[in-house]
């Protein structure tokens, strides 16, 4: 979904650039609360894994392909604010070094994949969790559904931007319908990858998963472990 230079006009690109900078500024504040000595290296590895995952295009019907966006995955593993910074770093490296995604479109790409992808992924994840018991077993399926939803929503937001500031006289409805339907299919791949990765990490080290914190606390209370107050060491 990396938008190249030239698809959107200058005012739209500037506007998304402002949105991206604002979002990153908020994330720089919010991420402080999510990161500590253990989760900071974890988050760096999550960003690296998202970069790698985005290289792995998988074929989708009809001669097109999709790849992981990783917003929902990063939000569940590292926390939503940290995930915005993960995706922004990935997009920066891709734009500057890999020529993947335009330079004038960097703000657009951060907005679509870093802000919309992460926000939708995290909110859907939280929404599903609110309806289900607070257990580790629901986390991977919830992450997968969140991932599934995040991709077509990001595609829809691109379509809206194209309707506002697209550089070609193409019917906005046509673009929106095509974008959302293809990205719904790509979202299935996103869901499968996200579900498998989240399940794998939770299987071995749930304590490193940001989205598992409350489920772990609930479980500790259940088995009546002594609390984590300073004395336990």
């Amino acid at each position, binding site marked *: 979904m990396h938008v190249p230079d030239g698809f959107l006009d200058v005012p739209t690109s500037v506007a998304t650039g402002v949105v991206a900078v604002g979002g990153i500024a908020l994330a720089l504040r919010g991420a402080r609360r999510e990161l500590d*000595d253990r989760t900071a290296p974890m988050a760096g590895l999550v960003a690296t894994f998202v970069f*790698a995952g985005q290289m792995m295009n998988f074929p989708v019907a009809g001669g*097109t*392909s999709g790849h992981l966006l990783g917003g929902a995955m990063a939000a569940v593993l590292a926390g939503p604010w940290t995930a915005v910074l993960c995706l922004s770093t990935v997009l920066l490296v891709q734009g500057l070094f*890999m020529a993947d995604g335009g330079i004038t479109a960097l703000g657009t790409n951060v907005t679509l994949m870093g802000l919309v992808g992460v926000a939708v992924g995290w909110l859907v994840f939280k929404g599903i969790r609110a309806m289900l018991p607070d257990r580790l077993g629901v986390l991977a399926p919830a992450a997968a559904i969140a991932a599934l939803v995040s991709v077509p929503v990001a595609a829809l937001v691109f379509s809206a931007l194209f309707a506002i500031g697209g550089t070609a006289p193409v019917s906005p409805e046509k673009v929106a319908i095509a974008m959302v339907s293809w990205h719904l299919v790509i979202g299935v791949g996103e869901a499968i990858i996200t579900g498998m990765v989240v399940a794998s990490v939770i299987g071995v*080290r*749930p304590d490193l998963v940001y989205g598992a914190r409350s489920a772990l606390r609930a479980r500790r209370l259940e088995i009546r472990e002594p609390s984590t107050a300073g004395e336990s060491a």
Partner: protein
Amino acid sequence: MSATEKRISTRNFFAVFLLAGLLIAGVASYYASSHPDGLNFVAEKTGFSDKEEASSTADGPLAGYSTKGIDNDRLSGGVAGLAGSLLVLSLAGGLFWVLRRRGTAGDEHSVSTSSGT
């Protein structure tokens, strides 16, 4: 709590997670689909793909996920993937290390000491 929650040490987990990423970027990516992605495909079908302009970084040494000067496709893509991964790791890892809360070792301590027993 640790017997069921911590099957491998933090260090080993990080090593495996990093290795998984590097293997995908450096080796498996060679087998990635080369079909246009969703956006490019839609741009072609609905007729705005010709608006795409080459990125100003298109001449860079790693542009297009291939390394300048390496003719072998597999090696060229693998080196670019690894270089990009390590760039992301150092930038993101460095940023997160600077942003992290300090002096919260209490929580970490209780976890690591209890795992040792």
